[in-house]
Every structure is written in structure tokens, then in C-alpha cells.
């Protein structure tokens, strides 16, 4: 086994040289046909300080038990079992892969749900599928057998789930559009916590797009209309947040997916900007990668991202119709980058202040 980073570097060098890339199902250093390797990535020599780069590791193309991924919308990594769950809205299927991208099984063939948005696994191994049509949360056995609709115990009125995740302890986190709150259920489906829905300021949600939980139990919320990334304690107390709907690499157009990697870095996928952005746990912008396209590492309307809690991240693309598995070893195998310099946000307030100064005749 090569040292961490070596395989990536070798693959990158090969790709730059117009040779082969990595194959599916074999070791990470095995080549695949050149036709699948239009990578033009700049080589990462693993020593130079500078922007953090996540290099493509291997690609999983269009395979859900004999059919193709058509419009994958959600991806989740079950750390207890090392499995990847992909919800495909156009196939009406949930496809399950091992961590290397080998298909294990899929379910939904009997019309159990329509347009699944996300599938996660709780502490008892049950699979929760958020169906886009009907906005129902359905519970399945570990074999994909339908058990029941999620009862939403403890919630007044009809809950309308719009985002979903689970933590390593098996708790399930649900964004409810009706209340505008985040609901946290334990593995016995008992409501443990609900928070959010502040009328103004921090902790206000309007359109929750994604949820993630780190190893400390801190909860991350991506919202398309309010502060794009908000972080809460495991008790639901607002801790911090960042970004806005504006220009600048630290900002967003449509944050759609959220993950936390092994080092606590926050990874956000932006569907409209076609990028994955990486932030420090405190919210300082580190880097972004992707760009519109179908080549390895490029993205075509990415919709979700997941981390295996180690060195891999998984990205699904709606128009790319694929799951990409990317390796972060390019980060681990290099010395620590210099402390990131926070990018000052160009807020509307600042623009208005500048305009006011202009009108007052200040230079």
C-alpha cells in the first residue's frame, strides 16, 4: 500500500500526462481506460503551501443494479457499517454502495416512495427515506423492507420534513418545514430536542437544505434563504454561522449539501455555483473545487455531499447523474497550510455604507 498521498500524486501526474486514471473496483492506484480520464488537474506535489486541494480519487458512474443513476439528490455515509446511501429522485430508488463505490443493493422497486431526497441510517440500522413526493419520512429495515411511516412523536400538527441526517450515535435529525425547526429523535424514535425557528437573527431558518453533525455532536444547518451555514451545540444553542447570498468564494448561491470531515472542516456543496467549498470549523474559507463539467473532479449541479469521517468525501450530481468519491489524502499528506486569512464579507451594509460615503463626497 502506498503512503498516503502517493497514489493521488501518481494518479494526478498520470492524468496530467494524458495517461490513465483510477479504476473502479480495483486498488486506488490501478489505471482505468484513458477515455475516462480527461483530467487536467494541476499536480499537487504535496509540499507546497497554498490552497488546500481535494483531488479526485475515483468515480462511480451510473450504476444502480443494472440501471443508471439518473438524478441523485442525496448522499449519506453510514459510519457504523461503512456504506454509502444514494437517493435517486428520477429512478425512485435508494442505492447502497460500499465505501469504495461497489454497489451492494438498492430498494424502492415496489414503489415504496417517490423521488427520494435523502436516506440515512439510525442507531438500530433502520433506514429512513425522505420522499420528495408527499414529503413523507418512511422507515425501512436494514434490508430495505418497508416498516412504517415515521410517526413524528411529540410534534404538534403535521410535520413536513425537508432535510435529514443522522449522527454516529444513531440519532436522526429532521428539518421540519411546518414549524421551521430542527427535530432530533433518538434511536427509539423519541423526540429528544427541537430548536430553531427564531423570528429574527441567529437560529432563524427559512429553507433548510441540509443537515450535518460532527463528532462532538454540534449540528450544522445549511439554509437557502437565511444565513447559509449555522452551527448549533448539541443542546440546540446557536454557536456561529457564516456566509450570505452574494459574491465571493466564502458565500453561496444555493447551498444544498453539508458534511463535516475527519478534521472538523465544513464541506458545503453549492448546486448553482457547481462547487464544493471547504471551511475551517470556525467558518474561515479554505478552498473550493469543482466547476461545471463532467470530467473527474468537475461537477454538474451537485446536490449533496457526505464524509466518511476519515479521508473520503462523496458528492452526487443531479445533472452529472453520478456519485463521485473524492479523497482528501492530498491534505493529510502535506504539511499544514498557513493559517487561513478570513475573507472579509462584502455585505450589503458595507456596500450601502460605501455608497453613503460616496454621496457625502468622501473619497
Amino acid at each position, binding site marked *: 500500500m502506498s503512503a498516503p498521498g502517493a497514489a493521488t500524486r501518481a494518479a494526478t501526474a498520470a492524468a496530467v500526462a494524458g495517461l490513465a486514471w483510477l479504476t473502479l473496483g480495483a486498488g486506488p492506484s490501478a489505471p482505468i481506460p484513458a477515455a475516462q480520464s480527461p*483530467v*487536467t*488537474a*494541476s499536480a499537487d506535489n504535496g509540499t507546497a503551501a497554498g*490552497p488546500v*486541494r*481535494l*483531488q*479526485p480519487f475515483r468515480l462511480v458512474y451510473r450504476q444502480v443494479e443494472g440501471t443508471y443513476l*439518473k*438524478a441523485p439528490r442525496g448522499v449519506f455515509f453510514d459510519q457504523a457499517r461503512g456504506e454509502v446511501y444514494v437517493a435517486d429522485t*428520477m429512478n425512485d430508488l435508494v442505492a447502497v454502495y460500499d465505501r469504495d463505490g461497489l454497489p451492494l443493493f438498492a430498494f424502492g422497486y415496489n414503489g415504496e416512495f*417517490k*423521488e427520494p*431526497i435523502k436516506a440515512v441510517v439510525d442507531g438500530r440500522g433502520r433506514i429512513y427515506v425522505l420522499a*420528495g*413526493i*408527499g*414529503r413523507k419520512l418512511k422507515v425501512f429495515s436494514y434490508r430495505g423492507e418497508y416498516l412504517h411511516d415515521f410517526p413524528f412523536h411529540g410534534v404538534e400538527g*403535521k410535520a*413536513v420534513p*425537508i432535510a435529514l441526517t443522522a449522527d454516529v450515535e444513531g440519532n436522526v435529525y429532521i428539518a421540519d*418545514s*411546518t*414549524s*421551521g425547526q430542527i427535530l432530533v429523535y433518538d434511536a427509539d424514535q423519541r423526540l429528544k430536542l427541537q430548536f430553531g425557528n427564531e423570528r429574527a437573527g441567529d437560529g432563524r*431558518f*427559512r*429553507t433548510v437544505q441540509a443537515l450535518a453533525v460532527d463528532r462532538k455532536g454540534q449540528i450544522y444547518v445549511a439554509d437557502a*434563504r437565511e444565513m447559509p451555514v449555522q452551527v448549533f451545540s448539541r443542546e440546540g444553542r446557536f454557536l456561529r454561522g457564516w456566509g450570505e*447570498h*452574494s*459574491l*465571493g*468564494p466564502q*458565500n453561496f*448561491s*444555493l447551498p444544498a449539501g453539508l458534511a463535516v470531515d475527519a478534521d472538523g472542516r465544513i464541506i458545503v456543496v453549492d*448546486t*448553482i455555483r*457547481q*462547487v464544493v467549498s471547504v471551511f475551517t470549523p470556525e467558518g474561515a474559507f479554505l478552498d*473550493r*473545487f*469543482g*466547476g*461545471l*463539467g*463532467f*470530467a*473527474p*473532479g*468537475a461537477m454538474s*449541479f451537485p446536490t449533496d455531499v457526505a464524509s466518511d469521517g476519515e479521508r473520503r468525501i462523496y458528492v452526487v450530481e*443531479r*445533472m452529472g*447523474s453520478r456519485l463521485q468519491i473524492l479523497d482528501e489524502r492530498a491534505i493529510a499528506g502535506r504539511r499544514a497550510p498557513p493559517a487561513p486569512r478570513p475573507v472579509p464579507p462584502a455585505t450589503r451594509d458595507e456596500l450601502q455604507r460605501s*455608497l453613503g460615503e*460616496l*454621496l457625502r463626497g468622501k473619497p
Partner: protein
Amino acid sequence: MRRTLVMLAAVAAVALWAGVAAAGEYHSGGTLVCMDCHTMHYSQQHDFQGNAMSPGGPPKPGGAWLGTGGPFNFLLRAAPNTLCLACHDGQSFAPDVLAANINASPSQGRQAGALNDDLVGAPYDTWKGHTLDSTANPPGFDPAAVGLSPTWYNAAGGLECTSCHAQHGPATSYRNLGAYSMGGTASNFRPTYVKGAANDPTKDVWVTDVGSGTIGSRTAAEFNPLYDRANIFFNRTDGVIGASSRQTSNKLGSFCAACHANFHGGAGDAPIGATPAALDGFLRHPTAAVTIGAAGGQGYGGHSNLARFNTGNTTKVKVWDSTGGPAGAYTNPSPGCITCHKAHGNQNPFGLIFLARNAASVTDEGGYGAAQTPSLNQGMRNLCGQCHGQGSDGALP
């Protein structure tokens, strides 16, 4: 001179913000910002601040590092339909046009239909609704017959969302209907609307309950009143279609006629929205100049039954009426295209509504209500029976 410059700057600033406010209700600056869809030089996708981004690296002459598909017309960052579907497919904050049309709950924000798409692989049969990227000429396409330029719609380019919707507004157009490519005649084909408790009978559409919501509202419950079919009614604003003598009872008929002027017939036949004289015998289903339940002067009356329409069905098709509905019984309802068809399609042939009888309650998809039973071969009868009586279904007018 300095004062003049300051004044100009102030005017420009006001114009900037005013422009945002007037850019159309559905895609105003608060919901989308320009760079979400546009890139000035097909160059901003790599970083929005000029930095190169992996895996493309620094720009190369002739390189494809911005993406292999572009650049796109109108400075778009991607193909128009692709951009639209980024928000209008499966999101909770925007109407979903690529889903089964459940039309079930105003809390879901997903009742915009089930369009098909030729490029991504139509999720539904293409004959169940409009098909994005289809290069077929619209059935009944005869723009000159309604005073439109024959080239306003380019079928070879494929059907795009913007073929029907003016993505930037105007704010006075219901659902932003009326493509920009119609040019100066577009206003003839754009249905107007009013929102709130008070109707304006001069407008084509009345959205009765806007709740506390606006586009981008905080929760779906606040957002969806604008899209809940229970809150949307149509005034009978009898007029003509574009620059023609053909009649329409609501400008939504004009809008449809822009593509489907002769949808119900060919050259020489009585077209959609025909003159009353041509209605005699009904060569094709009328969408203007008729009143449900009326007879005599309007041909054979079509054995339609106003009483049946008003009382016989718990869930009614949408019709045009002078009062817009829904306070009481309709007095002079007239049918239109969307009385029977869903523009964005559903699971039924031709986007027809009420056909499937697979649920106890009537929805746009199907089902059966109090006046029908599941044991009979209802199907189409559920739809036609909304307005028409036959035998024991109801007394003839």
C-alpha cells in the same frame, strides 16, 4: 459639477434598487441575484473572485476549464432549462415542475406538475404533458393567426421554460407567463392577476389568500397559499386573442393560443376560441363564448348543466366567471384550456385531470367524489361530468 455627479449617483442608486423591485415577483433580487444565473464572460464559475480553481487550474487559451458545454447565450452559466430545474425540481422553496402532480397539500409546495424532459430522459411519458427540450412543433402552431411573428418560437431550439415564462417578470403577469421573444405583442398574451381579499374583475386571475407568505417565505405553510389551487380563481374577462377576431374568455386562453392557435383544428376549421357562429355544432371543444348550462343561441348547449356544476361536485374544475368565484354559485362560467389540462402535465394522458380513479377524494390526478363511484368506469366521465349531464347524471338544460 460635483453636485451633479452626486445627484447622478443618487439617481443611479435609486434606479438600481427600484429595478430590482420591479424585476418580476418570482425572480426578484431577494430570491435570486444576477450572478446565480449569469456570468459576464463565462469566466466566473471558477471562483467568483478571480482565483483559479482545481481541477482546471489557471485559464488556458482555448481551454475548456470553464465547462465543456458553454458559453451559453444571454451570458447564462448553463443551459436555460438546466438552470431553471436547479431550483424547480425537488426543492422545498420553489414550485417543483418535474414531479408527480400530487396537488394534495398546500404545505408541500410541490404541485407544479410533472413536466417531461427529452434530454435528461423523460421521467414520464411524453404525451402526458409538455416536454422540455422537445423539438417538435407545438400542435396547432399558427402564430400568424393570432398576430404573432411566425418566428417568435423556435421549435428547433427545443422547448424551454422561457418559451412560456418571462423569467424576469413583468410583475403584472400571472406566473410570469408570456415569453420575451413575443416582443411588443407579449402583453396581449400575458394574463394579469390580483392578490388579496378583494377581487378585481378586470384581471384574469384572482389569488384570494396570500397568507403571510411571499416567495421565499419562511416556511412552506406561509409560502404555499400563493400556489394552493383552493386560493386561485379566474375572472371571465371576455376579449380577443392577440391581433385576431378569435375570442377568449380569459387571457390564459390567449396565452395558450400563442403556441396552439389551431390546437383543436387545422386551417379552415373553427379554431380555439372561435366566433359564436362557428360554435354551432361544436367542431371542437369551445374555450370561449360559451356558458356552462346555457343553451339555444349557443349551439346545442352541449348538454351542460350549471346546477350540476355548482352542486354536484365537491371539487370543481377551474372555470372563468365574472365574479372569479368562489363566494357562491357560479353564474356564467366558461371553460378554458386549463379547465381540463395541466400545463405542466401529470400522470394522465395529455395532462388531463380527474381521470385516474385511484383515490377516495378527487384530486387533479384523479379519484372519485360524492357524485361518482369507483365501481363504474368513471375515468373520463369524472372530468366531463363536471360540466355535462347525461341520463341520470342530471337534467338537461
